[in-house]
């Protein structure tokens, strides 16, 4: 049996029904655990004071905002190339979740920027490309909404997703190309010596895991809903045809 079988809605529904409770529980545990540990179990930073704790929301949210787009890109490509409906619907389902993460990252980033940089916002390359990504999320969702025929909508949003990926990647790697930005570089990469201190690092890992699992939960849930909605409209159309 091949992986593609899960692209069959029926198979997907069965699998996701079984997986969903586990993922949900794991997400809840990681999030509660990680955030509590981060907020209450770590010392204040000597320089930043307690504002450093925004890191437990900001970094995972920003990461997942980008990862969600990458996931949508993969799902869109699968749809465009192999035309598996579940894949298209999963991309559709992920967009609002990704948008929410994006907004969280923007809000927490702005809150953090005020004490750190003395401003809510700056036209730093990472920040700019991230803002553009936010707008892309909006456009992507709006495009899904605007097209009547679901397959056409999936095709068009697929094309848009590919184009938007430029900005998803830029907001992750822009800091590497331009060093004049304000924003933190890749301080978390696993092989770096200049990692943040371990006390912050481990709870952050748990939070990131929590956000990944939360994303998975929400996407599974929303994909199931999308599949049902699609089935419903198809059945209604069938009824009308008599």
């Amino acid at each position: 049996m091949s992986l593609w079988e899960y692209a069959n809605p029926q198979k997907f529904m069965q699998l996701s029904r079984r997986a969903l409770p586990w993922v949900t529980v794991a997400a809840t545990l990681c999030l509660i655990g990680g955030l509590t540990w981060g907020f209450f179990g770590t010392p204040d930073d000597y320089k930043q004071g307690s504002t450093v704790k925004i890191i437990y929301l900001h970094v995972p949210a920003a990461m997942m905002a980008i990862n969600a787009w990458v996931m949508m890109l993969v799902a869109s490509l699968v749809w465009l190339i192999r035309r598996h409906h579940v894949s298209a619907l999963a991309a559709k389902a992920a967009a609002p979740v990704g948008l929410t993460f994006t907004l969280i990252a923007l809000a927490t980033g702005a809150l953090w920027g005020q004490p750190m940089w003395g401003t809510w916002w700056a036209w730093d390359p990472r920040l700019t490309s991230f803002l553009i990504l936010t707008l892309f999320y909006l456009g992507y969702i709006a495009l899904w909404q605007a097209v009547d025929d679901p397959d056409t909508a999936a095709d068009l949003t697929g094309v848009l997703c590919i184009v938007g990926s430029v900005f998803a990647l830029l907001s992750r790697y822009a800091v590497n190309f331009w060093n004049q930005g304000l924003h933190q570089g890749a301080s978390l990469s696993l092989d770096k010596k200049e990692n943040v201190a371990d006390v912050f690092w481990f709870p952050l890992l748990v939070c990131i895991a929590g956000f990944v699992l939360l994303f998975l939960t929400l996407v599974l849930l929303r994909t199931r809903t999308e599949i049902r909605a699609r089935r419903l409209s198809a059945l209604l159309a069938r009824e009308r045809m008599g």
Partner: protein
Amino acid sequence: MIALLLRDMRLAMRAGGGFGLGLAFFLLVAVLVPLGVGPESATLAKIAPGILWVGALLACLLSLDRIFALDFEDGSLDLLVTAPIPLEGVVAVKALAHWTVTGLPLTLVAPVLGVLLNLPEAGYFWLVVSLGLGTPALSVIGAFGAALTVGLKRGGLLLSLLVLPLYVPTLIFGAEVVKRGADGMATATPLALLAGITAGAAALLPFASAAAIRINLR
């Protein structure tokens, strides 16, 4: 392809659609902003680069939906898709025609409007250079947005929404060039970025646009 370019330009001239409208709009912005903001020359000089670039961008945006919508409505687009020229070429030529009737005239009249907005003298050269380098990107990106939304309900609104994020970098770097130029600072970096955006967009987006049109015509 040249026939298509000529036709699109001729249509724009005759119907006043792209050509006049974009230009008129640009003028409008330059005339209305001092009226609205007040005639204080220091303030105007400060905002001139930004306002001129925003005006140019809006003027382009305004005429975008005509790139494909008219041809879609009267069936020309169906015929062009089945014609013996590659659709990518059609898209590129239509973006070029759009630029010739909006971006190019905008670039040429911009210095005049700079006067209205009291742009510092050192800025004129950079205004023309940055518009000349940046407006092609606006047309190519706009053609992509127009291709995604051709024939859709709510097309106009969606078009702005889809195109806006792609326009932001061009706007930022374009206005930056003029600002730095007006202040006598080095302009090489934003200028290079502007050129990069234009080149990248012109090289890649026509393919995405052609795919979008094929999908939308179904």
